[in-house]
Structures are given as structure tokens and as C-alpha cells.
């Protein structure tokens, strides 16, 4: 091959990549490196300059901490349930607003609203709406006769995870809808038409055509959402403080790092979080063959 032509292109490629490489070195690699480094020390946040290396002790401490595993469990439960609901709901809404019905333009825009509201604010709004004494939700439910007195949605330890999931579903379903809608629009309309002319009933069209064809789109959406859900922090934190029932791994890491000042242990907890997320990411990417897509 005229290697000279190719080499020229390669050089150009790295030149174009230069900004991103510099930016990532500065804002990602270096801070991360610090975190990894501190994970092996016994430093405290009030004076990080005093530390000694403690090897893997911090990792072991986190590993042996009951709270950590609680957080892992919460995080996994939260991720599994909320992403599942979001996917199903997102799919349903995407299918609905893909239909040519009056008002779908408005709906497409409206569906994005929850997404544009800052998490902290959205959480506060829902907390307020779910208030057991004054919450509008209870008012409506009582008014409809579904329940006879207000439910303390956020108080009971059995309900609070449900509430966190509910709010998360409200906030992030738009993202799902958006990605699935985009996927839907990429499927050739003629395939659906072919199935329709073939006399395939609607449910079967959905099950055997729409769903399999949407798989890549849903896969990518699920990946992004899962990664996000695994890192979930603010929603749980604002709604329930450090209630152990909804404590996520990120809250655990923050508690250790900031509230408890344990720079070393906190960093190793963060590293565990990173490893957890990376593991899940690799599994999903592998399952979806996203890396292939990236390289092709």
C-alpha cells in the first residue's frame, strides 16, 4: 500500500484527536488518577497531605462493610426495576407518539419536559406532591376513593424504594422515549406495511417485527440508562437523605469521602463504584456488540 498516503491520514487523525485527548487528560485522567492513588492511602480529607500507603486495606474494608453491600443491593434493585419500567413505558409512549394522531407534535415536545427540569427540583416537586398530609397525589387518590386516608409514601421503608423508582421513571422515561422513537423512525415503514398486508394481527406485528427490529435502539438506550442508574445519587439523596433503604453506591462513596472525611476509604469506595459500573458496561456492550458498531 502506498503507506505514505496512509501515514499522512493517520497523522491527521491524531491531530484532530488532539483536543479531545488533552481535554480528557486534564479533566478525567488526572483527577481519576488522584482518586485511584488515594484509594491506596489512609489519607483524611481534612489534611490530605498526611498519608501513608496502606495497600489494599481500604478496598478490603469496603468489601467487608455491611453497608456497602446494602448499597450495592439497593443500587442493583433500583437499576433493574427502574430501567425495566422505563423501557416498557418508554416503548409504549414511543409507539403511541409515533402514530399519526392529532396532538402528537405537542406530546413529543411535552414528553421532554421532565428531562429539562433539574433533578433536585424534580425530586422536590415530587416529594411535595407525595406528601402524606398535603400531597396532591393523596388528595386525588382519596378523592377518587382509591384510598381512604393519605399514604405516607416516603415514610414507610417498604414504599420508599418504590417512590425513588417512580420519580426516576418520571424523570428519565423521556430519554428512553427519545431514543426508541429515533429507532422507530429508522425502521423502513414498508416492513410494517408488508406485515399488515400479509394479514398479521397487530400484537404479532409488534412482537415479531417491531420489537426485534427495535432491539439495537433499545439496547443502546438501556445501556445509557443502566450506566446512569448505577451512578444515581441526587434523587435518593435529596429525597431520603442517607436512608439505608435507598442508599446507592454513589451515596455510600460520598458519605465516606465527604461526610466521614475518609479520603482513602472514600476513594476506594469510588473505585469500587467505577469497577462495578465498568463491569456492567462491559457486559452490556458485549451482549449488544456495541463495540462492533463502534469499530465499523
Amino acid at each position, binding site marked *: 500500500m502506498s503507506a505514505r498516503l496512509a501515514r499522512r491520514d493517520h497523522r491527521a487523525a491524531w491531530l484532530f484527536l488532539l483536543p479531545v485527548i488533552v481535554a480528557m487528560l486534564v479533566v478525567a485522567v488526572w483527577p481519576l488518577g488522584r482518586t485511584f492513588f488515594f484509594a491506596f492511602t489512609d489519607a483524611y480529607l481534612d489534611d490530605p497531605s498526611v498519608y501513608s500507603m496502606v495497600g489494599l486495606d481500604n478496598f478490603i474494608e469496603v468489601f467487608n462493610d455491611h453497608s456497602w453491600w446494602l448499597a450495592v443491593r439497593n443500587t442493583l434493585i433500583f437499576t433493574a426495576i427502574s430501567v425495566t419500567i422505563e423501557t416498557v413505558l418508554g416503548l409504549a409512549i414511543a409507539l403511541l407518539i409515533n402514530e399519526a394522531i392529532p396532538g402528537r407534535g405537542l406530546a413529543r415536545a411535552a414528553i421532554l419536559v421532565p428531562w429539562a427540569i433539574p433533578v433536585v427540583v424534580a425530586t422536590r416537586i415530587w416529594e411535595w406532591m407525595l406528601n402524606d398530609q398535603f400531597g396532591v397525589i393523596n388528595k386525588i387518590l382519596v378523592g377518587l376513593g382509591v384510598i381512604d386516608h393519605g399514604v405516607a409514601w416516603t415514610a414507610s421503608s417498604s414504599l420508599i424504594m418504590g417512590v425513588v423508582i417512580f420519580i426516576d421513571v418520571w424523570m428519565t422515561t423521556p430519554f428512553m422515549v427519545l431514543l426508541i422513537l429515533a429507532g422507530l423512525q429508522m425502521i423502513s415503514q414498508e416492513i410494517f406495511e408488508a406485515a399488515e398486508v400479509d394479514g398479521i394481527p397487530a400484537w404479532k406485528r409488534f412482537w415479531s417485527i417491531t420489537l426485534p427490529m427495535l432491539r439495537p435502539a433499545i439496547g443502546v438506550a438501556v445501556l445509557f440508562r443502566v450506566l446512569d442508574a448505577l451512578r444515581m445519587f441526587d434523587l435518593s439523596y435529596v429525597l431520603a437523605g*442517607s436512608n439505608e433503604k435507598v442508599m446507592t453506591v454513589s451515596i455510600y462513596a460520598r458519605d465516606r469521602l465527604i461526610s466521614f472525611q475518609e479520603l482513602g476509604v472514600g476513594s476506594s469506595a469510588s473505585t469500587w463504584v467505577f469497577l462495578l459500573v465498568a463491569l456492567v458496561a462491559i457486559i452490556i456492550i458485549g451482549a449488544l456488540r456495541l463495540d462492533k458498531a463502534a469499530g465499523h
Partner: protein
Amino acid sequence: ETISVFCAPTEFELCTKVADAWKAKTGNEAKINKMPALLDDAIPIYQQLLAAKSKDIDVLFLDVIWLGMFKANLLDLKSMVPQADQDKHFASTLNAAKLDGNLVAMPAYMDVGLMFYRKDLLEKYGKLPPKTWDELAATAKEIQEKERAAGNDKMWGYAWQAKSYEGLTCDAIELIASNGGGTIIADDGKVTIDNPQAAEAIEKAKGWIGSISPEGVLNYDEEASRAVFESGDAVFHRNWPYVWGTSHKEGSSVIDKVGVMPLPVGKDGQKSSGCLGPMYYGVSKYSAKAQVAADFVNFITGTDMQKMRAVEATLNPSIQSLYSDPDVLEKIPFLKDNQQAFADSAVRPSGYTGTSYNRVSQAFYRSTHDMLSGSADPKEGFASLAKRLEKLKESR
């Protein structure tokens, strides 16, 4: 000279006033920076600034529970603030800021847990303000039931805070201390929480939930419980003094129907133990203008400024003499009757625990929350908590 000061966002205007007054007096300027509304969010900011030995900041506004956390980075004010000025403050409050033999901060005002109640309802049903928790529960129950029977079906007996957060540490310490169960860890570092009185107090409180308190208290913080009280739906309400102000503001449903008293006790003869929450000002060790900053701290925590804050914002002074000052009393009439509450207050064990306070507190409120919500037994819960705390002590 100009120094840079952190102030709570709620007190921004008060701080500005202090700064003006200080400028008029000394010619020095104080630049005010707002802290986050959720004061705990300020911890990482302080942390970062102090870790970086930043000169950007001279005076820090501090919660009592942070003092241990920041003690290594705070200037010793013992010699920089005249002894006479130090002596004006409640001793208990000032002592809370003496760590490792250093005076790391000066008290600016103080909060203490108080019991608010519906004067009108108690009168209506011929009740006296209760002295013990049991009396409170009984009164609450009776009034609640009668009010509900009268058609006020949203009425509850007692609104308080049991969300899994720092506030629960306060509420629970009040209950336990007033029942003779101590304050988790004694000043000498002994873990005292595993005792029957403590378990008894919590057991009692657990019984309230669902009967005189809505189940929602398990996720109530100050504001959520205050909403219940101020919309006229609760007979008793435990909260900080600020509720006095808000419950008399336009929009409240209970204007002029509110009474205040110290918290009840477990049994007759025990001490009422409102949780103490004093706030302090301290000077950063890395301040380039330490003396000026210390002067400012002394000024802002001094009698004049505390009086000004008491009058303008009903913030309770930490200076004893102000508790008989007519101007102050006119604004905060309950101070006089409740001076005892301030004197008797229960202090969270932040002095001893220092940097570890948050861990201790979190372990405590989490297990307490488990007990209150019924997923753990108080006796066993406190026993295992005690063990955990012992272990924690060893770890640093």
C-alpha cells in the same frame, strides 16, 4: 483591610448589617459569601479550601457538629478574644468549642429543641401543658380523637422529625437524654447508648407513630412537620425556635394559638433535654489577616450584634445577659420561660468524636430509624450499635 466571611444564606442580610457596623467602627471591610442553603453542602467546600490552605477565606460560619471536623484548621482564639468577652457566653456553649485545649470558635447564637403546642386546643379540652412524654402522648391522643370526632379528621396529636437524617439524631437524643439514657457517647469517650432507658424512650416513640403521629414522620424533616403544625393539623410539635416566628406569620393557620415550652421529660424529676444546636464563627488557620478576622469574630458574636439578631430575626442569643433584656424579650417572649431549656440542653457528642461525628451520628440515626419503623428491636439495636461505635473508636 478586607476580610472574607462565610455566612448562612438565611442570615445574609444580618451579616451585611454586621459588616456595615464593623466598618463604621473599625474601618475594616468584611466581604460576605453565602453558604449553600443545605448547610452540610458547605462541608466539602470548606474542606477543599482548607486542604488547599486557601487565603480566599478568613472567617467561617460553623455548626457545632463541624467543630471537631475542622479543629485542625481553625485558629485558637483563646488569646485573641478578650477573656471578658468569652465569659459572657453560656459556659456549656463556649465549652463545646474548646477542643484539644484550643478555643476554635465563638458562639453566635443557639438553637435548642422546643415543644410547641396549641394553646387554644389545650384550653378547649382543659389540659395543662404536659410535663412528661407520657402525659404528652395521652393529651395528644385525647385531643386528637376528640377533634377527629368533631369532624377535623386530619388532626394529629404530635408532629416531629424521624427522617433518616441528622435531625433524627437530635430528636432521639432528646428523648433518650430526658429519659436518663445519656447522649450516645459520654464526654470521656465511653459509649453509653446501650442502656435500658434509651431503649425504653425509643420504644415509646415507636408507639406514637401511627397513633398520635402520622406515619409520614418517618420521612419528615423540620419543614414537613412544621407544615402539619402550622396548617392546624397537629396539637404538639417539636422543632427549633424559628417556628415561633413562622407560625405567627401571615398565612399560618395557628396565629396566636401557639404555646412554647421546654421538652417534656421521661419521668418526673428528670431534666428536660432539648437538643442544643449552637452556631459559631471561627477563623481559618491560613488567614493572612488573622487578628483582623478574630476581631470580626468577636464583634459578630458580641452582645450588640447578638441582640440585633435576636430582635431582628428571633435568633436566640448565647449571651446570658440578653435573656433578661427587655427589647429581646419583647420580640421573643418565651425566652424568659425557657431559659432553663437552653441551660439544660443535651449536646450531641461532636466534641469527643471530632471528625468521626458524622459516622457516629449516621450509625445512630440509621439504627434509630430502623427501630422506629419497626424493622429492628430497640434493645438489640442499641446493643449492636454500641459494638459498632466501639469499633469505630478504634479505627481512628
